[in-house]
């Protein structure tokens, strides 16, 4: 299935901003996080799919857009 993966802040370093990826059915958000070794950089802060916060156990669907942010903040 096709999933649009978007990375932000420190997660972009040495990786990418946005890429269309191909994953097998049943792939979870956590599996994507692990494959990209994101948490070696910084703990996961915000995980959204199609603009909604979801748990890392979320199973991706065809056409989903997943956005991954390390722990960041402001105000």
């Amino acid at each position: 299935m096709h999933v649009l993966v978007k990375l932000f802040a420190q997660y972009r370093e040495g990786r990418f901003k946005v890429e269309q990826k191909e994953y097998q059915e049943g792939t979870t958000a956590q599996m994507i996080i692990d494959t990209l070794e994101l948490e070696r950089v910084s703990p996961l802060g915000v995980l959204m799919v199609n603009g909604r916060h979801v748990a890392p156990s979320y199973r991706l669907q065809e056409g989903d857009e997943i956005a991954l942010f390390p722990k960041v903040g402001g105000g």
Partner: protein
Amino acid sequence: MADLIYRVNMSNLSFKIEEVPAHWMGLGGRGLTSTIVAEEVDPECHPLGPNNKMVFAPGLLSGTSASNSGRNSLGAKSPLTGGIKESNVGGTSAGIFSKLGVKALIIEGLPQDKETFYQLHVTKNRVEFIPVPELVGLDNYAVLDAMMAKYDKKVAVMSIGRIGEMRMNIANVSVKDPGGKLRSHGRGGLGAVMGSKKIKCITVDAADYKEVTIVDPEKFKEASKIFTKALQENPISGQGLPAFGTNVLVNILNEAGGLPTHNFREGRWEHAEKISGETMAENIKARGGKTTHGCHAGCVIQCSQVYNDKEGKFLTSGFEYETIWALGAHLGIQDLDLIAKIDGLMDDLGVDSIETSVAMGLAVDAGILAYGDGQKAYELISHDIPTGTPIGRILGAGTHILGKMYGLVRVPTVKGQGIPAYEPRAVKGQGITYATTPMGADHTAGYAVATNILNSGGHIDPLKKEGQVELARNLQIASAAVDSTGMCIFVAFAALDDAKCLPALIDMINARFGCALTIDDVMNLGKTILKTEHEFNIKAGLGKADDRLPEFMKYETLPPHNVIWDFTGEEIDAFWNF
């Protein structure tokens, strides 16, 4: 020697020094300014008349070696909201006031002579009133240069520009930071109050100061170490904020569908990436600015930055998400360098960069400029507002009055103050804070974005109503308390997620003053502050109907999540049940 109250009367250019009344002893920062304003200012007074007062007060820990304790509060009745206002700032004033033993500087009255502007020069046990005709008509950097030429470089400087002299609602009070740039008591038009009192600038001399006394230095040192470690180890205050500044929020709010776009018509902006924190950090790296910069001595977070243009020439510092959002997604400027140029200009002019920029976005609906026309925006801000042309006066009166002048319905304000950067319909906890805070729409009053969007202090679904009132209440109580300590509000990220942080902060207060406050005491202080402010507002004529968001948010759905503002009045009013 105990700290003292310095009281200045502009009506007869006199001052006196008073002992601190017992019931003000345990207060600092916002707790003290709001208590004094509530006790001494008639809530029905005209904010620019003789009966309003300006109260400056450093936080309880300001002037100590505690990390991030350099915030100074300024309180008064606000000409923008008609209610009580506290606005706090970094810079050097909090530390210098504390070291001089000034618990609060209260400025009352209006001069008889309507022509002369004054500099107030505060030294140990003395306040001088110096007429400054040569500074009239100058903006902040020119005033700062004049004061730097006159005094030791360490002198604290608080000033207004031309727009403050003209008493416009968007005028702020600007404060020198340790690097010689400017920080602002930004919101609520407090620069207009300073202009009404004919004060061009206030200088606080650092020559006579001494280190603040700490009752139990050992205990203080120990608690301070734990506190600093908590800030440094927290991924947000230790890594995220220093690397990307607050502007990292552009992409997060955009993803969440909570980035107000084109005057709150949509929750996403197709050009968000161009103005994002990631783009800003890349530019800084390529052009030789600084991604880290502290607004006050002792800051270990360093969320500020120095942002240069393509030639490496300084454009601005303290380049914040809310300003970038307002000039970007809200007004439509896609060029981050032009946004930076306008931000630097607003520092020099001494205007609230949020109120001014929210008004500029609304000016698109008024037909004054086109969406995305940064050149026109620059011209209006650099020429029309500071020279006081009729259109400049209307814009300078702020978002709410601009809306009234042009017969607009979609006016993003609460209590007359422009709503910043977080769409209330899509970040509902923040919407509750905007509706209820006594300050008017103010994101720092109770930053529910932390828990709605950033997963700090847990997670509460931003699109649902459940839990939002309680969240906003708890955060507003905690923020009122933190605003009294002199701490930067960003210590809250560590406080929300690290159990060691808050006890260490309270231990520092206890060690400083030799008291035995508990977490409950500090939370009770926050509650008392909020209730004091709320009561002032009610007496000033701000009722339940003012604790509401703009009506259009109740009937216009916001894409992409197609949400409306669906809280009833009763549900919002339950905020005050504590």
